[in-house]
């Protein structure tokens, strides 16, 4: 009967659902099937009782089951339960979220009251898994749960930044710069373009950018493998980070206030002081027989002092939350301000959130709404490189130059380094985003076990970028530019509509949870921009009028973008006696970003788990819980694509002057090539996992091994320049690659009377291998790397050096087998290169693979201890075994060009031969060529990411002032780093996948010292 009432309704589904009917239909069929299992169990013995916590307070919703039988119930609001069991010798199992399970033999009793102990390892914890939640212990896929407490303690601008080291398999590289976003990579490189995971905030599919207030986070779940992420389908290939924001709880209004203030300092280069610089510079010129430049010895500038400052961060958060029987609310407001550690940079955010929900009868409703305004003063130029490129003999100010700033000079300081003080003043870039993000949902509990939910999400941002360029110069021989003003305004909108039907029922030992639904998301982005030159200036004050009404030579432009994703999804979770768990997901996705004939794809996944510890035969005392998991699934991906990458379009922007009047005529042509048959990138992942809880749940261990294979990787693979292509390489389904990895996470907790502590270690190892490359190619070369079949991506491909020539005789005797002197022009003190092909000369053909930019393993170590009212927390993060390219050293150690030098550097001289630095030689790149292994270094590091000490004010004291709790925290970030890397920060991020290990003056992670105050009443 029920089956019939379902099926005809779905027959009305529109034509485009035909393809999914088989998949979605199967799920619905299963749901219907289980309706028919609604059979009540036979009963012979009734047990009643009450479940309470340690304090004797009743626990609502605690589960009570008879071990080995298919009966179970849960407690009511007063903690009471009634259960009929098969016989009077049954054993009851009591469990509740956050508490340790307890087993009690009935032994003929008819009343059993139970007190549950708060679990040290949270076996009953519930995690959000996308369109529903699951007990953590019932998970069959790879899901990491992040300790939210650890996240909110950290002083982070974005949530991504705060995640580092808190979950295994999650690689994070911070931005450092005020308002910058961190890069998050889950389980390695799955494709060759973007790695950002999908963020789902309260059901809104979006990304947790800098507008999002990390203080609002209630919980974070990270879905790592295909089966866990499959429900989010095509956008989940890089993993999913599910963020749930705080909700009000039943009870009187609770007010929480938190304030944090931090100071930031940037790491600095160890650069030569003036005297050392002058000595080395003269040496390089003298060795090259070039007349010395006339350095201005009257000036001593420390460019780092000029460019860097003490950064300052303030973060204030206040929230009001409460609720009654039928509703709850949470309102929070946040102000965040960051004055950057580099001059003329900063970030400022104000945000407001309102989360509320209510219910009446079978209907419930809720909304989450966040409004924010974020503004960043962006960095101009790159001061981290410029402080190195500028010479200490250049003055900061020089009235003789246009604009009044000092910079290079042909006769006195031959460098094109940019004066960071000048560019900070003369070029101002600011980006402001006003964002509204929220969703509203309604739920109908049609039957006790059947819910319908509609979710409507909407996000919009109004973006405004302003570029103000004053008249004046910041570098040697710069072209003249008048005052220029450029402004753009943009609007982003994303609309999400979701309908889901979920079924959740327990039939004795069988428990079934199923969901079927549909989602639709539309993204729009539109921008207009304008530029004017010769901006009006107030002649007496020198200030400019930065509006587009002023100035001349107007230029305008604008464009619109739109993409649609339409999906149908179904999932079924089946649990037999808490021993056997099965989970199946199917998703049918359609994307407007793919070739017109390739828009749709179907992606199934299945996972299973076996809780060994629940088996009767399992009698290992020290193991409290043991679960084995296996999963296999396929995900499709297209979100790395641009809006219309499959479409070859005509560029209509060229214009030419023609005729005696030089009339301007329009041109149009294809500039960027396109592959029209772009199809789904497919990620197939197999995951093996073990979860164990040992030693009275003091030790919990999760281990995962996975094989992730991505085929038809969508990437902008470099193509030949002879194609004449420009405007970016065309997207192509270009490669297959495989990641295999092992993740281990172990936590040990122990408690004594006043003292407790925990240690969590997350270890991740990862290997990637290219299985296949597009266009039938065997390798892709860039200037310094090669990506080859059968090897990891972006391996170093360089000339190998073999020390220095010490004598002219060594130069002459350095011959190949035919007796040809390999480097006849070398002199003592020059680099010796290895002639790998033996042809008697050093050419590009001598390059070989010289190491991998990939870390062999990464370690996160989180420790906490509390004694009475004190809490100490530490997070360590380490990355081991990578080889990186130090772009900084390739600049300071080169000597052929003018820049400052590394402090204490010892170039080879006839008197100082015990060194690995070649002789200083101005004007020749032979020793300083960028494509040699001279610049490779170990990327290994271990860093104390975070340490904090907090003190909870004694209850007696806070009660007297009417507070519920109060806490003072002092903390530090990035305080200690152990590394041999010579760049500013071993924890850097290079967004170019083919040059992943190239350190090129990326903004470093800053040292931060914070003090925070939190209280609630």
């Amino acid at each position, binding site marked *: 009967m029920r089956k019939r009432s379902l099926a005809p309704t779905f027959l009305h589904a*529109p034509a485009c659902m035909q393809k999914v009917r088989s998949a979605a239909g199967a799920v619905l069929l299963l749901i219907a099937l289980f309706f028919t299992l609604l059979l009540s169990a036979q009963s012979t013995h009734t047990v009643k009782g009450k479940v309470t916590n340690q304090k004797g307070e009743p626990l609502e919703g605690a589960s009570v089951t008879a071990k080995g039988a298919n009966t179970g119930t849960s407690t009511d609001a007063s903690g009471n339960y009634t259960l009929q069991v098969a016989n009077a010798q049954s054993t009851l199992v009591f469990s509740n979220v956050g508490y340790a399970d307890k087993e009690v033999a009935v032994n003929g009793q008819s009343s059993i009251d139970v007190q549950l102990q708060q679990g040290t390892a949270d076996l009953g914890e519930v995690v959000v898994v996308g369109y529903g939640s699951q007990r953590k212990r019932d998970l069959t896929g790879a899901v990491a749960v992040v300790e939210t407490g650890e996240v909110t303690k950290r002083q982070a601008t974005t949530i991504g930044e705060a995640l580092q080291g808190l979950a295994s398999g999650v690689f994070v590289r911070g931005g450092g710069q005020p308002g910058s976003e961190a890069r998050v990579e889950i389980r390695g490189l799955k494709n060759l373009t973007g790695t950002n995971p999908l963020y789902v905030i309260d059901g809104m599919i979006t990304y947790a950018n800098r507008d999002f207030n990390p203080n609002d986070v209630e919980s974070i779940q990270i879905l790592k493998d295909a089966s866990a992420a499959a429900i989010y389908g095509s956008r989940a290939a890089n993993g999913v980070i599910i963020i749930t924001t705080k909700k009000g709880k039943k009870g009187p209004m609770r007010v929480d206030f938190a304030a944090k203030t931090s100071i930031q300092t940037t790491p600095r280069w160890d650069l030569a002081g003036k005297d050392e610089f002058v000595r080395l510079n003269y040496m390089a010129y003298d060795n090259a027989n070039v007349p010395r430049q006339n350095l201005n010895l009257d000036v001593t500038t420390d460019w780092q002092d000029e460019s860097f400052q003490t950064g300052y961060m303030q973060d204030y958060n206040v929230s009001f939350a409460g609720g009654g029987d039928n509703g709850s609310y949470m309102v929070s407001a946040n102000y965040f301000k960051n004055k950057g550690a580099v001059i003329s940079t900063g970030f400022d955010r104000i945000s407001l959130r309102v989360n509320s929900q209510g219910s009446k009868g079978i209907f419930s409703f809720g909304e989450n709404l966040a409004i924010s305004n974020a503004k960043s003063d962006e960095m101009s130029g790159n001061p981290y490189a410029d402080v190195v490129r500028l010479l200490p003999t250049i003055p900061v100010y020089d009235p003789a130059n246009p604009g009044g700033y000092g910079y290079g000079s*042909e006769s006195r300081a031959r460098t094109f380094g940019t004066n960071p003080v000048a560019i900070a003043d003369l070029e101002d870039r600011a980006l402001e985003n006003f964002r509204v993000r929220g969703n509203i949902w309604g739920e109908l509990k049609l039957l006790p076990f059947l819910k319908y939910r509609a979710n409507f999400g909407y996000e919009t941002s109004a973006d405004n970028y302003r570029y103000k360029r004053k008249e004046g110069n910041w570098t040697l021989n710069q072209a003249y530019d008048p005052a220029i003003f450029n402004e753009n305004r943009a609007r982003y909108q994303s609309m999400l509509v979701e309908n889901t039907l979920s079924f959740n029922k327990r039939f004795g030992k069988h428990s079934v949870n199923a969901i079927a639904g549909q989602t639709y998301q539309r993204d729009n982005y539109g921008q207009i921009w304008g530029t004017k030159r010769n901006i009006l200036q107030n002649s007496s004050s020198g200030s400019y009028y930065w509006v587009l009404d002023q100035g001349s030579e107007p230029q305008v*432009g604008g464009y619109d973008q739109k993409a649609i994703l339409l999906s149908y999804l179904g999932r079924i979770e089946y649990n037999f006696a808490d021993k056997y768990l099965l989970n199946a997901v199917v998703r049918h996705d359609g994307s407007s970003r793919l070739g*017109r004939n390739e828009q749709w794809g179907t992606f199934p996944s299945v996972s299973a788990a076996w809780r060994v510890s629940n088996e009767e035969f399992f009698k290992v005392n020290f193991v409290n819980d043991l679960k084995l998991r296996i999963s296999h699934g396929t995900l499709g991906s297209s979100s790395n694509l641009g809006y219309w990458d499959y479409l070859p379009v005509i560029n209509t922007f060229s214009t*030419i002057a023609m005729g005696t009047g030089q*009339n301007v005529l329009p041109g149009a042509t294809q500039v960027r090539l396109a592959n029209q048959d772009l199809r789904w990138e497919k990620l197939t992942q197999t995951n093996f996992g073990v979860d164990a809880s040992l030693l009275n749940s003091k030790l919990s261990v999760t281990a995962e091994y996975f094989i992730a294979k991505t085929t038809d990787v969508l990437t902008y693979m470099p*193509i030949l320049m002879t194609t004449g292509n420009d405007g970016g390489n065309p997207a192509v389904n270009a490669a297959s690659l495989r990641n295999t990895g092992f993740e281990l996470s172990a936590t040990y907790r122990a408690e004594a009377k006043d003292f407790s502590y925990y240690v969590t270690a997350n270890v991740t190892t990862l290997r990637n291998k290219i299985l296949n490359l*597009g266009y039938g190619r065997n390798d892709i070369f860039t200037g310094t790397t090669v990506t080859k079949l059968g090897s990891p991506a972006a391996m170093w491909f360089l000339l190998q050096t073999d020390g220095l020539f010490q004598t002219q005789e060594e130069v002459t005797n350095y011959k190949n087998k035919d007796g040809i002197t390999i480097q006849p022009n070398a002199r003592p003190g020059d680099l010796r290169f290895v002639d790998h092909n033996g042809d008697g000369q050093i050419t590009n053909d001598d390059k070989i693979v010289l190491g991998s930019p990939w870390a062999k393993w990464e370690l996160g170590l989180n420790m906490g201890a509390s004694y009475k009212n004190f809490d100490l927390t530490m997070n360590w993060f380490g990355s081991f075994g990578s080889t990186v390219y130090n772009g900084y050293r390739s600049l300071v150690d080169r000597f052929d060009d003018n820049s400052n030098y590394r402090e204490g550097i010892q170039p080879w001289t006839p008197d100082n031969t015990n060194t690995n630095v070649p002789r200083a030689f101005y004007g020749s790149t032979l020793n300083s060529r960028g494509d040699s292994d001279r610049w490779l270094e170990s990327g290994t590091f271990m860093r104390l990411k975070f340490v904090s000490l907090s003190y909870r004010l004694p209850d007696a004291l806070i009660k007297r002032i009417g507070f519920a709790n109060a806490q003072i925290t002092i903390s530090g970030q990035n305080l200690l780093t152990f590394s041999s890397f010579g760049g500013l920060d071993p924890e850097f991020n290079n967004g170019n996948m083919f040059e992943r290990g190239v350190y090129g003056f990326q903004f470093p992670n800053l040292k931060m010292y914070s003090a925070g105050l939190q209280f609630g009443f």
Partner: protein
Amino acid sequence: MKQYIKLTIAISLMVLIMPSCKKDLLNVDNPNTITEEQFWKTESDAEKGVNAAYAMFYKPGGWSRWIYFRLDLTSDEGFSNSPWIELADWTRFQYVNYNFWEGNAITWRDTYKAIFRCNQVLANLPEIPFTDNNKKELLLAQAKFLRGLHYYYAALLWENIPLVLEPSKPDDLPAQRPLAEVWAQVEKDLTEALAVLPVSWDAANVGRPNKGAANAFLARTYMQQRKWPQAKTALDYFITGAGAGKYELVTNFQDNFTHTNENNKESVFEIQFSDVNKGGDGDDPNQNMGHNRAQFFAPRGIGWSDGQARYWMVDEFKKEKTTANAIDPRLRYTLFYPALFADFGDKIYGRNWEWNANEAWFRKYQRDYFRTNEDYFAQNNVRLIRYADVLLMYAEVLNELDQTATAAGYVNTVRARSNMASLATAHPAVLMSKDAFRDRLKIERMLELCGESVRWADLKRWGDLETPAKVSAVAQRDPDFNNFVVGKHVRLPIPQTEVLNNPNLKQNDKY
């Protein structure tokens, strides 16, 4: 029963709320521009396609910036003293990283980018219906001319290159061709263009190539291969053919380099630069239509000064006076040099000489005649071929064909404009032998054309880079040639990523 009603209501609701599943819901059209499929349908499309090919003259790999480093600075006329050592190294045969973008790869890329645009026109136009077929032929001829021109310069620079003649596909791996085949393709394109192009265009289309432009480039192509009779045939166009009398030397030598007297009677083919758009180099709205040469070659403190002139040229100019016993007036508009003010009363961008006593910079195409600074938007047209060059080419061809006496007349015409006496008067010895005449012609070409991007081709054609002895002679004028390895540096290395990623392409010899 109540439950089933609720259920039915809910499910119906769900289906209703679901966005209507129109079949084409996912077919989101790009609202920003026309697709390739929708283009190449009308005469207007065809015109725009050809215009876009011209727009490649404004790109930095070519004639807005970097090609001058290859043609002028690499030759013995210029050099780089840039503090950017790698950039300077690429003007003195110290090629280490063959992928160096500014020195090599961008010019390679922009060459093929231009060829791609020409190929699109050549492949698509035949299908477009035209009311006037002659118009279609003219458009095709322009595309052929431009493709021939770009291959001409590519042949000069890299010699053995792939010939791409069809619109590109992303997976193309075109095969390398020997230099002779590349020249043959240039000849073919230019010859086919020549057959169609008009003797002259109407005022609105001045700036497009005419028969003169095609003949001049064809002559250059033949001359580089030392095919003298064919070169003479092409150049006869200007002397005895339809182009005779159409071209003249302008009175004021400076008029060849400013924006105030463009497309004049001396002009054979010039690039139409404009400062109307103050935009970037990319393919975006408001893209720059000016050149950056002036900014890159201006003296220190005014421009980047990445390129400057060899001082031997100043001395060469001063070796011979005019018939009025004055300094050769061409020197004034050719170079900035220490005595410029003393000799001619001109300051340098309003400044006194503040540079070293043995330094010089190119003045041609600099804009000091109306500005005191430079920027990236120079509007003065660059004359790729002017009539004076044609006359000197003709003289060279005649001399090679053993008509030295006749050849002298054409050199005299050029000299006369600058009040220089005839060769018979000033240099009678050079008329005595073919070799002596050729040696004089080398100087005459420098005096007239230095800094006009012809010297690299000249040195190659004259064989001055073919033996170590001859290279040493060049190195007397330009010590950068001490680094020159015969048989190697006469052509550039092909960008290494192209060689590595294309199995059908080998690196040039000795690299």
